[in-house]
């Protein structure tokens, strides 16, 4: 089996400022890889470069063994889809859920729109009644489900997740994280997830990389992280912070 995603020596600059410096990592098929870091560490920029949303990068990116260039063709987007942070900003406010979900099918001339839209909604456990509603008629959690359904309708192999739960309530976050874990298992998807919340990354990803100032300072498995095997000072800082904020829960359970 070839490696699903190979990023090597990725460098990204915005008007002369280097925001991502020599980031390399591999993700195996069916694996879930997390990128954790503070704002400005370059984690989302890496994800956007993978998705082809940013064309000013250097280095090499391979998906499924194929090197991808600055521009991506249509087949790329049938394989790789992205879910954004804010379900309020990433759904077209004047389009119904039906229109939002069928966009990809219309653009790519794929038939059976009716069946596929219904299946996608069922996949993310939304009732079919939401199909003809507008985004503002749905709750935040429902909107994020729609965003996930929109990514799934392309039947991708890879999902790029940019802080998929940070705009949601903790109670809704649990539902969305469960859904993502379930989908990955059922559909055999590969995830790359970006978040500033270490506990969320550790929950969904088996392996992760910590970023600071545009550099991936450490890569380790979640198991190693939990067993206090993190070596880099920044990773240890993130771990300590995360643990200190969950002490109440630990005591509660």
């Amino acid at each position, binding site marked *: 089996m070839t490696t699903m995603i190979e990023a090597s020596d990725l460098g990204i600059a915005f008007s002369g400022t280097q925001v991502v410096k020599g980031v390399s990592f591999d993700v195996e098929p069916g694996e879930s890889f997390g990128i954790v870091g503070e704002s400005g560490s370059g984690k989302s920029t890496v994800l956007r470069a993978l998705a082809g949303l940013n064309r000013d990068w250097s280095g090499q990116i391979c998906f499924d063994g194929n090197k991808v260039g600055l521009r991506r063709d249509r087949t790329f987007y049938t394989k790789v889809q992205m879910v954004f942070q804010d379900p309020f900003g990433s759904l077209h406010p004047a389009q119904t859920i039906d229109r939002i979900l069928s966009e990809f099918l219309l653009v790519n001339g794929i038939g059976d729109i009716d069946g596929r839209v219904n299946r996608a909604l069922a996949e993310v456990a939304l009732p079919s009644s939401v199909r003809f509603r507008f985004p503002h008629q749905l709750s935040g959690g429902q909107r994020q489900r729609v965003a996930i359904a929109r990514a799934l309708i392309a039947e991708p192999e890879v999902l790029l997740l940019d802080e998929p739960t940070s705009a949601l309530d903790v109670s809704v976050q649990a539902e969305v994280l469960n859904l993502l874990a379930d989908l990955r298992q059922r559909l055999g998807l590969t995830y790359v997830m970006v978040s500033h919340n*270490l506990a969320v990354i550790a929950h969904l990803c088996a392996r992760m990389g910590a970023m600071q100032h545009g550099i991936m300072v450490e890569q380790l498995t979640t198991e190693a992280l939990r067993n206090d095997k993190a070596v880099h000072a920044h990773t240890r800082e993130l771990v300590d912070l995360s643990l200190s904020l969950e002490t109440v829960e630990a005591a509660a359970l």
Partner: protein
Amino acid sequence: MLVDIQDLRIAFVSNGTRFEAVRGISLSLDLREKLGIVGESGSGKSLTARALMRLLPKQADVRATKMTFDGIDLLSQSEREMRKIRGGRMGFVLQDPKYSLNPVKTIGTQIAESWRTHKRGNRKEAREAALDLLEQVMIRDPKKVLDAYPHEISGGMGQRAMIAMMLAPDPELLIADEPTSALDASVQAEILRLIDHLVESRGMGLILISHDLPLVSHFCDRVSVMYMGQQMEEIAAADLARAEHPYTRGLLNCMPMLNKPRAILPVLHRDVAWLEEKAQ
């Protein structure tokens, strides 16, 4: 008693149907006390805070058997009298510094404006006060930030600037509505520690609103848990670990944890009985 709210009800009428968003909330707070209000979106926690500051739009129907601030009946105050209390004696820190700061004025000007409105003084004094306030909120290079525009500083710094602005008139009560949910985990803790420190050293009262129960419990004495416009329970933060209400336990339980991996997160099972109005 600094704040005393009894049986607060907030309703909105749309197309002839009346919807009660807050249904009989009672809260009280003393000086030097820190109260957390926790609940999901739509639980009415922000509405409660805004009602206390009388910041709700006209179409909101606000009723309470009692709503006082330092003995002043807030419901009967004129808008003019409210303006002296609001900002002056009650500070309000909002969620997102990106949207709450004026993008075309420097940080220094905005803090100085807040200081001058309530304290009266000349420009020079106001600027000095602004510098002093920026130092109090622990900004490393206050001189530089004073002349910076909101887009030139980070989210954490913007939130510090907003706190500085709220502290300018020396309020007795600080209401913070999700002050950290737009920020990173590490900055979140810093800002909350700062608020905690300022509230303690100035002897203010604090109402901290959030959807993150464990986070709030670190910084408050008491926590009021809200669901769909009603108070589920009020509990001392120290006793949170022994909370019995299923909703409180659900909120505590559904967070992913680093030191306790679980394959599936427990989700909240909402009980219809929670919606029934409890007898006062």
